[in-house]
């Protein structure tokens, strides 16, 4: 009808809305992090702003916005400004292909069909992996442009770490690709709808993928680039105010992206959790996915399920952070190169063998 509207304006608005929702999620993710870790540490956490501290993230945002924004004299100004933007934008962009509902949950607004994902790229996984690795530039450049020693060390660590873990991060998914035969995230979930969660077929890959993801995100126990007891604050030591907020955003969005990826690839994305009862009560999946109420209900239900699953993954992040000490730089590298990569390669071989065996039995 109006191709310009349909292919440019509507996706643009969709993207903006998605980004805003994401930002809100990040705000409350920080709140959740502080609360969860506080409870694990037998304390209360933020409870002053708003009822039960619920407005704390907003206060934090306001604080970051009105804070003085310092730039060190010796810093390379241009890069110093660009770095946080690169870090944030690349992680936000990664979210474009993550589905939060099936194609059947496509709703129409003013006659424009809105699908519950920004794009269904047929190389979705590759897109996510490549775009999220651009984020490392933000960190390295930020560390370097600060022209200060701690950020430099933090940036270098981060470069090495993210590049090393990129490899197992990608390799761990290969099993999924081999089983499903597609690289589109939507199709992977659809495959899981027809068969079963990939988690049951690829349990080891989940663990590898998640660990590599944690390391990619620079989260504990792999939070070396910003290890506060060693490098003060790592690559963002010299950042303050809104530029700091951008790095902060990047880190948390990256967490959400990895969690959403784990959920989409291994835990059935928007599919409802039926605890294996789907076979006993054939109506159950349809009931829980909202298929009885048309696309809007399905969209809501799909989003709900994605939200719940992602919530659990994020909780796992925080739980791990609350429990474990931090690795040392060289140990981290050892794990990456000497364990993760060989193990993920071995898993690929195993998966291949499994697929061949299944084919042999079937034929």
């Amino acid at each position: 009808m109006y191709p310009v509207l349909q292919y440019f304006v509507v996706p643009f608005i969709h993207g903006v809305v998605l980004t805003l929702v994401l930002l809100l999620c990040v705000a409350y993710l920080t709140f959740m992090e502080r609360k969860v870790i506080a409870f694990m540490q037998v304390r209360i956490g933020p409870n002053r702003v708003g009822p039960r501290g619920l407005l704390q993230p907003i206060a934090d945002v306001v604080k970051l916005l009105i804070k003085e924004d310092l730039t060190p004299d010796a810093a390379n100004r241009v890069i110093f400004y660009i770095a946080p933007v690169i870090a944030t934008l690349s992680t936000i962009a990664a979210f474009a292909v993550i589905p939060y509902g099936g194609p059947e949950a496509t709703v129409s607004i003013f006659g424009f069909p809105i699908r519950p994902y920004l794009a269904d790229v047929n190389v979705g996984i590759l897109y996510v992996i490549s775009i999220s690795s651009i984020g490392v530039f933000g960190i390295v450049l930020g560390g370097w442009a600060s022209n200060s020693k701690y950020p430099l060390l933090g940036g270098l660590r981060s470069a090495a770490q993210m590049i090393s873990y990129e490899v197992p991060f990608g390799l761990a998914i290969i099993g999924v690709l081999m089983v499903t035969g597609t690289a589109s995230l939507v199709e992977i979930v659809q495959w899981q709808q027809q068969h079963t969660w990939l988690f049951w077929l690829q349990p080891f890959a989940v663990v590898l993928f998640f660990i590599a993801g944690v390391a990619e995100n620079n989260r504990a126990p792999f939070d070396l680039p910003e290890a506060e007891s060693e490098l003060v604050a790592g690559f963002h030591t010299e950042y303050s105010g809104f530029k700091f907020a951008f790095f902060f955003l990047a880190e948390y969005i990256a967490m959400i992206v990895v969690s959403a990826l784990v959920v989409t690839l291994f835990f059935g994305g928007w599919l409802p959790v039926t605890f294996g009862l789907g076979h006993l009560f054939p109506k159950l999946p349809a009931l829980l996915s909202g298929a009885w109420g048309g696309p809007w209900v399905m969209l809501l239900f799909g989003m709900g399920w994605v939200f719940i699953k992602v919530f659990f993954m994020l909780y796992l992040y925080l739980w791990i952070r609350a429990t474990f000490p931090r690795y040392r730089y060289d140990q981290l590298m050892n794990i990456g190169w000497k364990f993760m990569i060989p193990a993920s390669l071995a898993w690929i071989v195993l998966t291949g063998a499994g697929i061949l065996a299944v084919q042999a039995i079937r034929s």
Partner: protein
Amino acid sequence: MSEARAVVIPRPAPLPWWKRFFLVEMLQGMSVTMKHYLRGWREPFTVQYPEERLPLDPRFRGYPRLRMHPETGDELCNVCRQCEKICPTLCIAIEEEPHPSGKGRRPRQFTVDYERCCQCGLCAEACGSDPISAIYMSHDYELADYGRDRFRAQKDRLYLGFPAPPAGKGKAPGK
């Protein structure tokens, strides 16, 4: 020689491979935090300070204050200057005057510099007044104020003290 024995402390053996592979000790650690999480949800250990306060022990040493004779209501201090002498931070200063009754002396002005006082309690212990010590360790501990001169507590403040904080409703952990 005492009965103390030197014992070489055993180092735990390296983890067997299956424990390493299945992250056993990691999961154990995570169960500890989870246990605390499930309990900490309801019973945090911390105290929400301005609203809740821990009850103070009877022996708690806050800032030193002066008191009157419990029966006669007279000033107890007889300016023996023991407190002044023992104070490690030299924060007590006393000006004396003869007691109106003609017997002994009494402080005309008594100053304790709360900024310097380290709440050691030696003054109260050294005080030689009868029947109880004139200077005693009060339970005041919240002295935020604007301006340093406010911390040079003189007789009025030493006798009346600072406005008492609202009574604490918190429970002291471990008591």
